[in-house]
């Protein structure tokens, strides 16, 4: 059965998508609030997502909510914040099994979506603020989470690199915001921001499952009707300008293996060609970076490229011994020069193309993945189907790849490393 996708407007700045595939044994709904990533509101929105996903007026404690969800065959309500370009996505999500697998014939999905609506519109409050005790715990947890970013060294290196790559741009910030701001949040301030966010931000809701359930859309529509909207416009991203001089930053922590993030900037318009270029250059285990930096020179366990099309930034990240940082950088640059000069075979192009096709087609494996695909497309203002994307991908030429590579300029080299050694 083919994937069915439909998107419609159901309110002021609110869109509802439905993706069905006839196969899924679970149903999911996410509500994405798309808002500008800013120093003032990032941490606020982060704490809001965690409070409203953890309780509601009907289920005022975490335990009562979790127990009800467990009865619904381990349904879940999840809140999160993520970064997309210069925007912060505040996501509230519910997932549950398809009703046909319920042992006692319960209407699991409808009940789970109602719980989600309750979390969204009817949080646990007292005296015009979030319930203080809950709020304090969630706030402390946010502070802990921000501090714990250092625990994962590879992603921590990215976080620190972003501060330099996107200096003075919203994308420089972390999705969870800064600790110093988080510490100042009050229950009243968070509640006020919550009301503002759900009234004014652009909203994309997506249902994914085996078959469409109109009742879910109605529950969502009712919820937002109750909220009363005052939509102020969406948040978009702009390309990041390349710096006049390459920015070099080294930071030292108590770690064994160094991490290097290199960022190249571009204003190249064709994201499909750029991703294919990245596949030839560094995104795959057959790319130039893997074959040379890892397999030939034995310098790294991982060394790969990725592309952030919202900001026009291609990055290369690697884990390397401190003594080999210079060697790795030189090889990473020299492999990019090779691509710029067209030093790759037709076979390399076709291999990269096949891998890209495989990855895009693989999206269709799950309605939930397709829903995420369309969300990213919509954010970019494109709304291409996976099939349309592949159609264009098949027509990218050698010249397109060379042009994509030549548009890249080195902007930042960030190194996270251990104590100085001789």
């Amino acid at each position, binding site marked *: *059965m083919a994937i069915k996708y439909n998107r419609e407007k159901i309110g002021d700045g609110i869109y509802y998508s439905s993706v069905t595939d*006839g*196969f*899924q*044994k*679970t149903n999911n709904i996410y509500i994405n609030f798309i808002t500008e990533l800013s120093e003032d509101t990032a941490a606020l929105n982060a704490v809001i997502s965690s409070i409203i996903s953890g309780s509601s007026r009907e289920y005022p*404690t*975490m*335990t009562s909510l*979790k*127990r009800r969800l*467990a009865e*619904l*065959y*381990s349904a879940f309500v999840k809140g999160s914040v993520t970064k997309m370009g210069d925007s912060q996505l505040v996501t509230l999500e519910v997932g*549950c*099994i398809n009703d046909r*697998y319920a*042992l006692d014939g319960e209407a699991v999905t409808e009940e789970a979506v109602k719980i989600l609506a309750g979390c969204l519109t009817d949080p646990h409050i007292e005296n015009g603020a979030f319930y203080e*005790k809950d709020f304090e*715990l969630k706030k*402390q*947890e946010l502070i*802990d989470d921000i*501090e*714990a*970013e*250092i*625990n*994962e*060294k590879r992603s921590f290196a990215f976080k620190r690199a972003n501060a330099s790559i996107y200096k003075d741009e919203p994308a420089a910030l972390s999705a969870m915001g800064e600790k110093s701001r988080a510490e100042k949040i009050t229950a009243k301030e968070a509640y006020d921001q919550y009301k503002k966010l759900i009234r004014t931000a652009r909203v994309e809701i997506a249902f994914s499952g085996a078959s469409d359930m109109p009742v879910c859309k109605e529950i969502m529509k009712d919820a937002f009707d109750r909220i009363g909207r005052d939509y102020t416009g969406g948040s978009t991203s702009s390309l990041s300008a390349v710096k006049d001089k390459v920015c070099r930053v080294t930071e*030292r*922590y*108590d*770690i*064994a*293996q160094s991490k290097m993030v290199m960022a190249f900037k571009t204003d190249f318009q064709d994201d499909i060609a750029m991703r294919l270029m990245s596949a030839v250059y560094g995104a*795959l*285990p*057959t790319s130039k970076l*893997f074959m040379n930096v*890892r*397999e030939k020179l*034995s*310098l790294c*366990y991982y060394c790969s490229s990725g592309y952030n099309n919202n900001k026009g930034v291609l990055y290369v990240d690697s*884990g*390397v*011994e401190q003594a080999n940082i210079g060697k790795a950088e030189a090889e990473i640059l020299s492999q990019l020069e090779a691509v710029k000069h067209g030093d790759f075979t037709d076979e390399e192009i076709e*291999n990269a193309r*096949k*891998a890209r*096709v*495989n*990855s895009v*087609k*693989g999206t*269709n*494996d*799950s309605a939930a993945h397709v829903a995420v695909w369309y969300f990213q497309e919509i954010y970019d203002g494109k709304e291409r189907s996976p099939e349309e994307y592949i159609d264009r991908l098949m027509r990218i030429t050698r010249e397109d790849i060379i042009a994509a590579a030549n548009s890249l300029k080195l902007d930042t080299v960030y190194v996270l490393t251990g104590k100085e050694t001789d």
Partner: protein
Amino acid sequence: MEKKVIKSERLGEQYTYVKHPTGLDIYLWKMEGRSTTYALFGTKYGSINNKFKTKDEADFVTVPNGIAHFLEHKLFENEDCDVFSLYAKTGASANAYTSFDKTCYLFSCTDNVYDSLEILLSFVQNPYFTEETVQKEQGIIGQEIRMYDDDANWRVFFNMLQGMYLNHPVKIDIAGTVESIAEIDADLLYKCYNTFYNLNNMVLSIAGNIDEDKVLELCDKLLKNKGNPELETAFEPEPDTVCQREVVQKLEVALPIFNIGFKAEPPETAIETVRAEIETNFVLSLIANDTSDFYKKLYDEGLINSSFSSEVFLGDGYFCSIFGGESRDPRLVRDRIIAEIERCKKEGLDRERFETVKKAYYGGLIRDYNRAEPIATMLLNMAMTGNLSPFDVIETVAAVTFEDVSARLEKQFDTEKVTLSIIEPVRGEGEQA
């Protein structure tokens, strides 16, 4: 060739099991109309299998730590090319992994599934090692080991295993150490390969839009019967106590990270292992999942945060229950868990939540049947546990009683056999780098 269709009435699903004449167990799950096919070809050979013998040897031999993982890396290199470059022609996304008790080679693809399968079946059966390629790999794996040296969640877990087990090789890092892999050479790799990469010791599992006959045709063509070496593995006897009660290491982390493990006797048979795992999971949920009063108490006191979780960890010759998370006071968390377990032994587990825990367990299992990848993985894992089916898991969960679970609490949670592992921050709280 023996062929059987295994069905689940409950799920309305089925798959085919084939015992191939070469000795290979094959599991095929057809998913009509789906885009992705996921295939796994694995051997029951992991980091713990460092002591073994075959019918050709009089005595058991011991090999360097990390060799199963090293072998996995090296199989990706053919005599004339890299295996990734073969897959590149089909567009498949390929990978491999080594765990404590298995090594698996896999691909995921949307087109050219039989070409990819041919690559998979061929390269895993055709080893090629030279001293030069072995040396090159020592550099790459050295960097992989260094990466894990900085990984606090990995370290806290292995430190706990090292504290818990005196002799069992589960305590040794899967990749070995920079020193142990330096002892590996081409001859040793061939020895291990010829011992463990025998089709009698292996499983092929595929889920996706496949034609079973075409798959079996390819198997007939490519699988090589090398005879049965009558492999035996062995472990040093493991004492019934923990080796150390506490292991502490300092790393670049924000809050202290902990693992608290309860050591227990491993079950004797495959089906008993599955029952023990499921019933122990029930115990963990009843005592300390996020719907329990105990969790709420600790959470409200700020002693744990939402990273707190528990799991059962088991395999050939080892079985333990682990509570993990972040806390400002991991020792107090341990003491509270021990006290709660003792209380539950005396006053009984929370019977009221039993049915809810069961429903949640069942719901969680249903999720795994959405896509090819988890389905093929479950088929392989259950086959390697002892020719069991993923459907056995669902049926066992459905049949578990409160009394089974209460008995498990008595049996599997000895509060004398506890190891606490802590990763402490190198800096004090609030201190900047």
